[in-house]
């Protein structure tokens, strides 16, 4: 079975400071990892994904994520937070083979204070 853990329900950061949203995963075989963002009453917007290759993945809106196989983590980062980054962030995983459905974490609410 595959699973995702997002240990923080909420992350608070001041505008201009770096931010990190944590994610750990469990899956059989090689993982495909994703980050999505959700604004109120909206669907999911894709930020970035790791399929293979460089462990540091760069995505939309200045976000990046680092894949760490030994720690089974895929933390989302941004060097300088914006108030407009305030939203709900979801990490998701699926295996490279077999089951093609995404398994999502419970989400982390990011609050960026001016």
């Amino acid at each position: 079975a595959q699973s995702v853990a997002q240990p923080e329900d909420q992350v608070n950061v001041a505008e201009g400071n770096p931010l990190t949203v944590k994610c750990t995963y469990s899956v059989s075989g090689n993982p495909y990892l994703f980050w999505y963002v959700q604004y109120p009453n909206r669907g999911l917007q894709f930020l970035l994904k790791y399929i293979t290759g460089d462990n540091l993945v760069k995505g939309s809106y200045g976000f990046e994520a680092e894949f760490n196989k030994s720690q089974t983590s895929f933390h989302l980062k941004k060097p300088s937070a914006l108030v407009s980054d305030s939203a709900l962030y979801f990490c998701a995983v699926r295996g490279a083979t077999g089951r093609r459905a995404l398994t999502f974490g419970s989400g982390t609410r990011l609050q960026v204070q001016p």
Partner: protein
Amino acid sequence: DAGVTQSPTHLIKTRGQQVTLRCSPKSGHDTVSWYQQALGQGPQFIFQYYEEEERQRGNFPDRFSGHQFPNYSSELNVNALLLGDSALYLCASSFRGQGNYGYTFGSGTRLTVV
């Protein structure tokens, strides 16, 4: 280029009724997956359709059924609605030829069961 289109955006149903939700995938995509997102939770996989057949299914009862049409659009049907079926229903499309890791989500249908 239109993304994933879902209809309706909102609807209210009474317990015991039946509901049909609709999804048009992104142009060029041939696979449709449905997810249920209860309030305060991450999306949960319901099922996936490819070539007009259900290919994978999550842990949802048979009250949840679906269909995919030759133009790749899809419907989600829920019978005998329960209060607990109230949620945001998300449709995601992808292209199987890409290994199904380029997922595009719609904005969802908010279902309220009263």
